[in-house]
């Protein structure tokens, strides 16, 4: 959860100052900051549970690519505005039902972080859905660009909603965790919005991705190089 927020937040931050209009530049930066704020909570908790004295910054800035556990969808390039929108939408449609599930976990720390995130992510999904519909069902040119952008990001979405060994193991320990339910909710949102947006689900299969096991695409190295440079070059730098 923390790495998803951190890496997608970092990606979205690349838009800062480059948005198509001022209002949307700010909208996207808000979402970026929401996600980075969420990442801070998750990573702090992870460091605390690990008990090795690593705080959020240590985890964010002093891990290498193969130690990151986010979905490879999050690290895919921004592309054009439509690509960013669709990557965000496919992520939000997964992020929200998962957070809703975690917000009902017995563990009070997990539940309270998720409850805070749910409110932010509900807006993210609303925002990305609206843009998907606006451009998908806009002009002939915007529709074509959206369908093409969808073909680019679609193969990475499968990793979010298909269970891996970790999901099955976790579901045994905690029956409140159910990736099939997230999968169902995701498809329902995707079908509903694509229907309004006049977008077709691409015929291409999911690309087998193992971001959650630390196997990432070549994109991640570039993100980390930029994100981690300063704290690595100046380890005692203060905010």
């Amino acid at each position, binding site marked *: 959860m923390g790495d998803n927020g951190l890496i997608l937040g970092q990606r979205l931050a690349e838009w800062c100052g480059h948005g*198509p*209009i*001022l*209002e*949307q530049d*700010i*909208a996207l930066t*808000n979402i970026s900051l929401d996600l980075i704020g969420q990442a801070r909570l998750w990573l702090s908790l992870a460091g605390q549970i690990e008990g090795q004295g690593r705080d959020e910054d240590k985890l964010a800035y002093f891990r290498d690519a193969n130690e990151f556990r986010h979905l490879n969808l999050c690290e895919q390039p921004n592309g054009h*505005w439509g690509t960013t929108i669709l990557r965000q939408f496919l992520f939000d449609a997964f992020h929200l039902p998962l957070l809703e599930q975690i917000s009902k976990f017995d563990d009070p720390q997990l539940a309270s972080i998720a409850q805070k995130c749910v409110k932010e992510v509900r*807006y993210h999904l*609303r*925002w990305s859905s*609206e843009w998907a519909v*606006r451009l998908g069902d806009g002009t002939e040119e915007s529709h074509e660009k959206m369908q093409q952008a969808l073909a680019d990001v679609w193969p990475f979405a499968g990793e979010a909603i298909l269970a891996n060994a970790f999901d099955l193991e976790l579901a045994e320990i905690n029956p409140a965790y159910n990736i099939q339910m997230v999968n169902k909710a995701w498809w329902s949102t995707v079908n509903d919005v694509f229907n309004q947006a006049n977008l077709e689900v691409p015929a291409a299969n999911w690309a087998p991705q193992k971001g959650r096991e630390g196997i990432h695409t070549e994109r991640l190295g570039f993100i980390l190089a930029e994100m981690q440079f300063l704290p690595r070059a100046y380890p005692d730098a203060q905010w």
Partner: protein
Amino acid sequence: MNSKNWPLFEVFIRSKNGLSHKHVGSLHAADPAMALENARDVYCRRNEGVSIWVVPSDHITASDPGDAEELYEPARDKIYRHPTFYTIPDEIGHM
């Protein structure tokens, strides 16, 4: 995307319940739904409000600054119209 063609909207925000909506600025948007979200993103980032109104700017009829003399000056010397002779109890709060 050409935002030059997007109409202008005026944004009004209620900072808390019990107060009136107050004009805070304007923005461009393709339609009212987008204007509302833009207003949320641009003007409510620092906990400014609990309610937003957006109004297409061309729906606002404004007074002409050139008419100021006849519109406002006559009221200037009529202090008897101000309710300054009453004391307002503290409990009333905002008036």
